[in-house]
């Protein structure tokens, strides 16, 4: 079920009504409703994959208990932890990476002159959101091992934590220490929280429909026919993709956080206006926060982080960026994308500037100076180049695109594939950037307007923009579902 579908607009009010009216005083029933609702939400795509999510839930529920039981004995606890890791990464590896690894092995052997005649590739459908919920369940066992949380004895609570529908298929990836207590604890309807949730949902919808969906046909057209376009058009394609993926993913996160608020649950922020970052270090503290912090806590720090010397720290940085790239998809383009970011990050790390902008934001006290604006543009430019790897079908496609960027200099004439006026999109992006700048202080409050009339006009303009850029013919699914 998509957030931007008719089904969801019927599903959400129904669940909301049952949750706060029918089961208001029955906490257990509220959680059962969340669980059943989440399974309906997930099963809407393909009910068969519900067995997978149920298996992951059962394994980690049991392993969590066993880790806690074995804990005084770290070695035994670690053995149980491996059961969770092997199961979750096994499932992820099979569904997401099996064909990739087999294909890469065959290609590797071919380069060495060895041919494999029979290759076992399988027709595997990637279950939606598998990378998200496997990471979430694994972190539960890790946190028990580290003593951060106690295992829950309530299976319904745990299953609702794993499958909580707002964030099930594309995050934010939640930690058990944050989400589980909220699910286990009693919740009370809060008007302000619900209103904030609706605002976030509306703003997320704007990002998805007006930015991501509207730019998608242009991006597809330019990337699919990159050899026909002039370098400035190719650059525009990469910039548009940057906004498309931002609108798509952060829009989804906003809608997820907004929906959760309606049920009295706070999810972690996933995006904090990343395109206003002044260096790559800041960008990674603002882009897909729940994933980057996951890798920091469960991979970078266990590997030694930056405590064991510069060389090891550099190695660790490379590892988390490469793994983070691979997490996104079974394709070398994602690995190169991760590596590219590692190369941008390491000089900052060596100069000690990767944390330079921690805790501050662009134009916090006064309008940003030329130096800061240049820093933002430079970061945006680098990130835009990296998106070419992310969007490309394969490495050859990415290289061809880069060659076009360098060599295909001609008049930058471009016509929208469906014949729409291009000026509409430039104006829309300018308005969006200006509005994002205006609200940049708090990503959880996209309409920070006190006056009721002005707020009403803002809502109206958002709804109007949705109608102006709505495209009945476009594919409305979210990019990150494939990850």
């Amino acid at each position, binding site marked *: 079920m998509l957030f931007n579908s008719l089904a969801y607009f019927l599903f959400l009010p129904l669940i909301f009504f049952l949750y706060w009216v029918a089961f208001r005083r029955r906490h257990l029933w509220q959680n059962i409703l969340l669980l059943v609702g989440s399974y309906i939400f997930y099963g809407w795509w393909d009910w068969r994959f519900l067995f997978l999510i149920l298996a992951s839930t059962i394994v980690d529920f049991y392993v969590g208990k066993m880790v806690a039981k074995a804990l005084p004995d770290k070695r035994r606890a670690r053995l149980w932890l491996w059961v969770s890791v092997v199961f979750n990464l096994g499932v992820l590896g099979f569904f997401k990476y099996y064909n990739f690894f087999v294909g890469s092995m065959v290609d590797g052997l071919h380069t060495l002159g060895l041919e494999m005649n029979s290759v076992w590739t399988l027709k595997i459908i990637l279950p939606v959101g598998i990378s998200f919920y496997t990471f979430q369940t694994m972190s539960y066992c890790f946190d028990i091992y580290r003593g951060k949380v106690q295992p829950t004895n309530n299976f319904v609570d745990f299953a609702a934590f794993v499958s909580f529908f707002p964030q099930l298929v594309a995050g934010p990836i939640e930690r058990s220490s944050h989400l589980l207590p909220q699910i286990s604890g009693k919740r009370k309807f809060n*008007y302000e929280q619900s209103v904030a949730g609706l605002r976030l949902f509306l703003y997320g919808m704007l990002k998805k429909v007006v930015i991501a969906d509207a730019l998608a046909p242009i991006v597809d057209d330019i990337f699919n026919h990159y050899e026909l376009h002039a370098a400035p058009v190719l650059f525009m394609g990469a910039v548009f993709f940057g906004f498309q993926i931002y609108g798509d993913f952060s829009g989804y996160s906003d809608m997820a956080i907004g929906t959760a608020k309606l049920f009295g649950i706070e999810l972690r922020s996933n995006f904090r206006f990343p395109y206003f970052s002044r260096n790559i270090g800041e960008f990674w503290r603002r882009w897909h926060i729940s994933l980057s912090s996951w890798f920091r806590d469960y991979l970078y720090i266990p590997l030694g982080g930056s405590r064991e010397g510069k060389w090891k720290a550099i190695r660790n940085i490379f590892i988390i960026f490469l793994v983070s790239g691979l997490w996104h998809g079974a394709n070398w383009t994602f690995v190169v994308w991760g590596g590219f970011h590692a190369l941008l990050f390491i000089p900052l790390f060596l100069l000690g500037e990767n944390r330079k902008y921690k805790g501050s934001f662009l134009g916090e006290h006064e309008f940003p100076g030329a130096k800061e604006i240049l820093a933002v543009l430079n970061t945006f430019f680098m990130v835009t180049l990296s998106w070419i790897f992310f969007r490309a079908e394969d490495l050859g496609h990415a290289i061809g695109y880069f060659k076009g960027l360098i060599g295909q200099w001609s008049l930058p004439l471009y016509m929208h594939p469906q*014949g729409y006026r291009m000026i509409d999109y430039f104006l829309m992006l300018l308005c969006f950037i200006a509005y994002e700048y205006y609200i940049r202080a708090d990503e959880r409050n996209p309409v920070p307007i006190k006056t009721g009339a002005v707020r009403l006009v803002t809502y109206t303009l958002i709804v109007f923009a949705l109608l102006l850029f709505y495209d009945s013919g476009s594919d409305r699914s979210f990019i990150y579902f494939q990850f």
Partner: protein
Amino acid sequence: MKRLFFKILAYGFLILLLVEALVRGLHLHKGTPERMIDEKGVEKWVPGQSGFVTTGNRRQNFSEYRINDLGFNSYREFDPQTETYEVALIGDSFIEGFHQDYYNSIGKKIERRMPELAVYEFGYAGYDLADELHLVQAYDELFEKIDMVVVYLHYPDDLLRNRYWVSEERLKLQKGMYGLLQHSKLLVYLQNIGFLNSMTKQLVSWKHAISGSSGGKEKSEGNKDQGLEHKTLENFKDLVGQPGLNHEKIVFLVDEQLLSEDLKNYLLTAGIPYIDYGKVLRQEKAPVTLIYDQHWNDLGRELVAKAIAAYLVNEQKPPIVQKQIPLNLHEEYQ
């Protein structure tokens, strides 16, 4: 909880009201004129109306219409004279031309190519061949003075009935609940951009999923096609065979590639003349239709006008002015 519910309702209502105002203020809605059925049983637009028609969700296409005294979209009144050569162009929305300014219609484009000609456009959205030939019969005095009648025929949609009867279906669009809903320009706009349609499709697909049917898709396509081909041919014969039609004057405007083999063979063997507009449209690389709309854009109309003009030149019509047609125009039509 109640507070939230009422606030959502209040804000929702106010937002819809403001969006309605924006849609009206920026004229994003389609805005078609009023329909009528006259004393001769001809469905047409109420004479004397004028306004604008919008297509696409950001006013991608915005054009002006003018309904003349007879009830058709045209820059001119229809008053045939013996000394001028008049061509009537009859058809559905493609000829009606609400997707282009009335002063830049297909008829006007033909006249620009052949200044000696006067083109009378009898276009009305939804007309089929029965409507078109009924119009010719109902206004027989007018059509007697017109030298040539070009009848647009879209296969197979225009051949689904074999005789004319007054259809109230389209008039119902401006009456009752539907007509009431048309007062909301926001709803009209939502319908235009395909929003309501996608909702309806979704609901229909759920209905089919629940009832376990596939919406009739399982019917044998082959048999269906054969039946349709036979039926449309018979309908065509019935309609064209009506008494009182001057076959000497009538030429059909068709996309030859869309016609069934049977109908094409019939046209050829019966010696019924036709103009193939489909060929020129297909030869064009640039888009010939509008966004969000199957209708011809300016280029498409230009090409259709060119195809009609080419036919007239080749058939030496009007005969007395052939020598006045610029040489390059003759070459263009070779």
